[in-house]
């Protein structure tokens, strides 16, 4: 009798249900937690992602379990109604915000409230660099097609090159939700590695003389321009590309909150409490999609490699475009600001600043690089809109 109780208890524990796949996934989540906490790799995102991955792979917890719904005929009215027979797991419900594409745009609203588009408004030409860096997305897209991924999968992998977490997750949740785990891990890991990935490429493509170019100071931007900017961009972009509206629309409403000067409370909420709450939900549930069958396969390895390629190409094309602008402007533009076109705000701009200062200690490129940097955010949102239009 006692033995039977013991045996029942044992079989209900996670230890008895543990399979080889679970164990490996748990190990991966421990490694990611280590990278996030001990090495400081994007801890604000990687900690929730890695913990979500751990929770979802503890057997028996069933946090991602889908609800069981049955359709029955209502005895009194004779109509067919759906009835939930078993409720799903906690993370399953939180995951709906990812699946339905709700969280990433909300995060974008916070990003908008944090972003100062001033440097872009002061130097409109820098927008082109934000566009050029999006080549990385499509080069990788083609690479992924060549490796045998389907169209929607290849599009989701390519968008890693946009170096924009919310955009990548939004597109993936709409096109290839089964790849969310590996794509989130690849996108956020590479974003943390921007200061390591970019400088060698930037140095290889430019001469010391080009890197040492000191750019003219940006003109001051009036408040009116800053207020009009989000309104006009939203109308323009959404009219041209309706599929980009969730990302661009919320990015710009966040920015308008910031710039009106009258909506400080909304702006503060968007860039602090709200974005943090949503990041917790997003991180944990995206991590939880990384089950053994979704994660432990050759695809994940390809995605990690392709993601790196996407970053590298985006950086390279940005710098090359920067060189073109250097030539056409008669040496006034420092090509290093081109690499900041791969979103990753503000890390990529900081890298431009750092590499520029190495070549010329008097160089101050940060604000110049912020222009392409924030243009890159808009550019990758547009690229995502295009891919969504083709494959959605």
């Amino acid at each position, binding site marked *: 009798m006692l033995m039977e109780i013991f045996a029942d208890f044992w079989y209900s524990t996670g230890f008895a249900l543990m399979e080889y796949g679970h164990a490996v996934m748990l190990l991966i989540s421990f490694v990611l937690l280590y990278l996030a906490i001990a090495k400081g790799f994007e801890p604000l995102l990687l900690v929730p992602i890695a913990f979500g991955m751990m929770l979802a792979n503890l057997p028996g917890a069933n946090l991602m379990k889908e609800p069981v719904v049955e359709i029955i005929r209502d005895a009194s009215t004779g109509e067919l109604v759906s009835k939930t027979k078993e409720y799903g797991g906690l993370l399953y419900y939180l995951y709906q915000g990812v699946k339905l594409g709700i969280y990433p745009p909300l995060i974008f609203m916070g990003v908008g409230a944090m972003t100062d588009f001033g440097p872009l408004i002061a130097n409109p030409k820098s927008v082109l660099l934000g566009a050029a860096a999006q080549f990385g997305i499509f080069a990788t897209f083609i690479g992924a097609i060549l490796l045998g991924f389907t169209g929607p999968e290849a599009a989701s992998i390519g968008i890693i090159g946009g170096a924009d977490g919310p955009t990548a997750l939004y597109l993936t949740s709409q096109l290839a939700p089964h790849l969310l785990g590996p794509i989130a891990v690849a996108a956020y890991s590479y974003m943390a590695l921007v200061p390591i990935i970019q400088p060698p490429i930037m140095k290889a493509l430019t001469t010391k003389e080009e890197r040492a170019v000191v750019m003219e100071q940006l003109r*001051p931007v009036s408040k009116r321009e800053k207020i009009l900017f989000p309104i006009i961009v939203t109308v323009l972009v959404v009219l041209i590309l309706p599929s980009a509206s969730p990302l661009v629309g919320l990015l710009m409403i966040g920015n308008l909150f910031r710039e009106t000067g009258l909506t400080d409370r909304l702006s503060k909420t968007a860039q602090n409490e709200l974005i943090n709450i949503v990041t917790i939900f997003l991180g944990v549930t995206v991590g939880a999609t990384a089950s053994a069958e979704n994660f432990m396969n050759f695809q994940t390895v390809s995605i990690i490699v392709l993601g790196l390629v996407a970053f590298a190409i985006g950086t390279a094309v940005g710098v090359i475009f920067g060189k073109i602008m250097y030539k056409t402007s008669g040496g006034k533009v420092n090509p290093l600001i081109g690499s900041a076109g791969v979103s990753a705000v503000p890390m990529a701009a900081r890298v431009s600043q750092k590499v520029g200062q190495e070549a010329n200690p008097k160089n101050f490129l940060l604000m110049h690089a912020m222009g392409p940097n924030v243009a890159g955010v808009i550019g990758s949102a547009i690229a995502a809109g*295009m891919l969504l239009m083709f494959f959605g």
Partner: protein
Amino acid sequence: MGNEVTMGEALVVTLVSMAVVFVVLILISLTITFLKSFGAEKKETKKAAPVKQEKPVQKEAPVMATTEDQEDEEELIAVITAAIVNSLGVDIPEINITSIRRTPQATTVWREMGKQEQIMGRL
């Protein structure tokens, strides 16, 4: 477009998408250029009137002996200028700081500290 994509289709997607990305961003760039002429606020009369800042700093000697001191001085001027600009809510070109003088301390340090602590406690 379906799931299986041929190389040709992938190239079309790439070309069309990049073209759209460029066109939209160029349009945004043009709009911003347009905004510049349209959106620039009229320069207010503020600009002409030099704001005299009768805050800090009494120079002890007219000429600073070492360059280090001079750098310190410049830094101090920059910080004070930034603080003034920020509190007045104007742009740097709009004000003209003519002199900076240190005013004698009106209250004791203890009193000042007590006030600060009160303020911090209520934040």
